[in-house]
């Protein structure tokens, strides 16, 4: 080998690990599970999840899926809570940059693989993009029935009455369904699926999406998928149709009225602002000249006495 160290190759001398960390046997096993998952939309396929150098619960399922599908020409984007800059997204992006030497981006439109935790990007995804979700608890029935053996039966017989009863009890008690995130969906009119803890605001984006959606749960050792253009129905009742969160004010930075907003506390006087959780969406809008009330400096603006939403 020349004096210039070769970058990551199949058996890499520099990092000491295979391309994208996992060995090829493991990747093959995971790809088989992904194919099965795509063939049976919404069905949780058990897989031999490996210990990763990141803790279980911190995205090991998503990382294993991404590691199994990513190639040298891919462009990777990693988001957590909608943002490319949150610490864990930074850490996972750095992991792939190191072990796969793969190009990364923050621009949703430029990415071919997007790994996400808790959000779906605001920008509509395309058929040449894959969205990989990190999943903590893949079983939508888990909090109604802790036993895996029982849950498997419920899915097999498609006897989802227990879920309908839970949603009905919400309405009876509170007047509305009280699931705000990880809102259960029915995929391709068959399996009830946990969309991972995305806010229900994002649920409609899963329906009929041109992009392939893959879900990886490392600790629970399950992979599932929504193939492109698949019906994804958020569970509801005729007289209580599914609806999503709305905000009384637009994004304080870019003025968007159609995005999921995070609440940011500005002071201890009740001052607060709302801003897009999808940081790339927000940045792009501001680059296009859109501005919100706090575009300059939220802390300063709020001190000028312009009362933020209280």
């Amino acid at each position, binding site marked *: 080998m020349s004096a210039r160290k070769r970058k990551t190759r199949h058996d890499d001398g520099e990092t000491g*690990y295979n391309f994208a*960390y996992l*060995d090829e046997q493991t990747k093959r096993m995971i790809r088989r599970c992904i194919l099965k998952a795509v063939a049976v939309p919404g069905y949780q396929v*058990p897989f*031999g*999840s*490996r*210990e990763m*150098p990141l*803790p*279980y*619960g*911190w995205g*090991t399922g998503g990382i294993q899926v991404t590691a199994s599908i990513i190639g040298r020409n891919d462009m990777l984007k990693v988001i*957590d*809570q*909608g*943002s490319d*800059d*949150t*610490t*864990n*997204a*930074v*850490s996972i992006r*750095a992991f792939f940059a190191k072990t796969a030497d793969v190009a990364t981006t923050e621009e949703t439109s430029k990415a071919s693989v997007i790994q996400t*935790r*808790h*959000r779906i990007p605001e920008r509509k995804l395309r058929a040449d993009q894959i969205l990989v979700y990190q999943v*903590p608890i893949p079983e939508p029935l888990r909090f109604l029935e*802790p*036993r*895996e*053996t029982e849950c498997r039966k419920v899915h097999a017989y498609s006897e989802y009455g227990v879920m309908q009863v839970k949603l009905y009890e919400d309405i009876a008690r*509170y*007047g*509305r369904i*009280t699931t*705000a*995130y*990880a809102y259960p969906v029915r995929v391709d009119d068959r399996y009830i699926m946990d969309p991972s*803890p995305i*806010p*229900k*605001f994002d649920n409609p984006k899963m329906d009929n999406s041109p992009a392939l959606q893959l879900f990886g749960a490392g*600790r629970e*050792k*399950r992979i599932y998928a929504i193939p492109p253009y698949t019906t994804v129905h958020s569970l509801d009742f005729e007289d209580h149709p599914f609806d999503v*969160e709305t*905000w009384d004010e637009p994004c304080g*930075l870019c003025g968007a009225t159609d995005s*999921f*907003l*995070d*609440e*940011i506390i500005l002071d201890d006087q009740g001052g607060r602002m709302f801003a897009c*959780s999808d*940081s790339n969406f927000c940045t792009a809008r501001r680059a296009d000249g859109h501005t919100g009330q706090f575009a*300059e400096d*939220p802390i300063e603006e709020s001190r000028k006495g312009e009362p933020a939403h209280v």
Partner: protein
Amino acid sequence: MYVAVKGGETAIENAHQLLAEERRGDPDVAEIELTQIDEQLGLAVDRVMTEGSLYDRRLAALAVKQARGDVIEAVFLLRAYRTTLPRFGASEPIDTARMEIRRRISATFKDLPGGQILGPTFDYTHRLIDFDLAEPSDDAPEAPLAETPVNDAMPRVNELLESEGLLERAAPPEDDPEPFDLTREPMSFPAGRDQHLQNLARGDEGFLLALGYSTQRGFGRNHPFAGEIRMGEVAVEFVPEELGFAVELGDITVSECQMVTQFTGSKEAPPQFTQGYGLAFGFCERKTMAMALVDRALRAEEFGEAVEYPAQDSEFVLYHSDNVEAQGFVSHLKLPHYVDFQAELTLVRRLRADYEQAHRQEAAE
């Protein structure tokens, strides 16, 4: 400008540097060496090897050093390394009956062939802080040598009982199938005893200790006796395909516990005692005892006992015993959850608005 989520990359880098600095501690104090950890904190190394499922004292010592003495973090480091190792094959089953004994006790018989050998145990020490240990000493402690060497023939207590038919026979299942491998396959239920034992062997000592203890206090009692506990060296043998016969790879230290537990019997079979089993790398006696208690508790169904308590519940025990999984999921609560929380916040505000409106209406009526 919206700083709340920016700067993650630098923050992480700096935190790691701070961690490295703190791990090293005061540079005026000599840096600890792996041989010191291995030799003088050997039981920590044993536990890390056992729960990390990798027999390598040096690596385990390194993990303990890197983890600043946090045993669970060290187990995690070892596991994450282990999973990347290529597999040449499976060794022959180790034969603990042929163990080079360093410790061997039985609580069920006063004396037995081979005798009782206490070995290097904390048992019967008075737990008084030894202030002499506070300063390094030039006099290395030396134990007296026994007049006669340890007996070569050291039959297992359980085999003595088995031969009389008093104890269920610990035999492999019919056709001796390949054991389940949790490191390659996801958990599957109903789980066989092979899956139970592998899971318990990797399981967290504290978790198993508490579960085992709970069975002693009545939450799934099975009347245990420590039939035999032994610790020492066993040979690991491997049959290379091209040779076709076993070659010895080396010795490893293991601890083993065989519990003699509650008897069963039926119209068809005379009463006999049952067994619980525990095995660990190194000297992890407490772990093997807890493991044996839980192993037996998990066999409740097999013996037609009611499954009523946590220690008897296969799904409960197997899904929650792994401290690498458990610490990961508990610690992930530290990750940002503000999107979920925002969704909940919006919901609760809406529910409160509904509530207020309903009450206002009621008051008006």
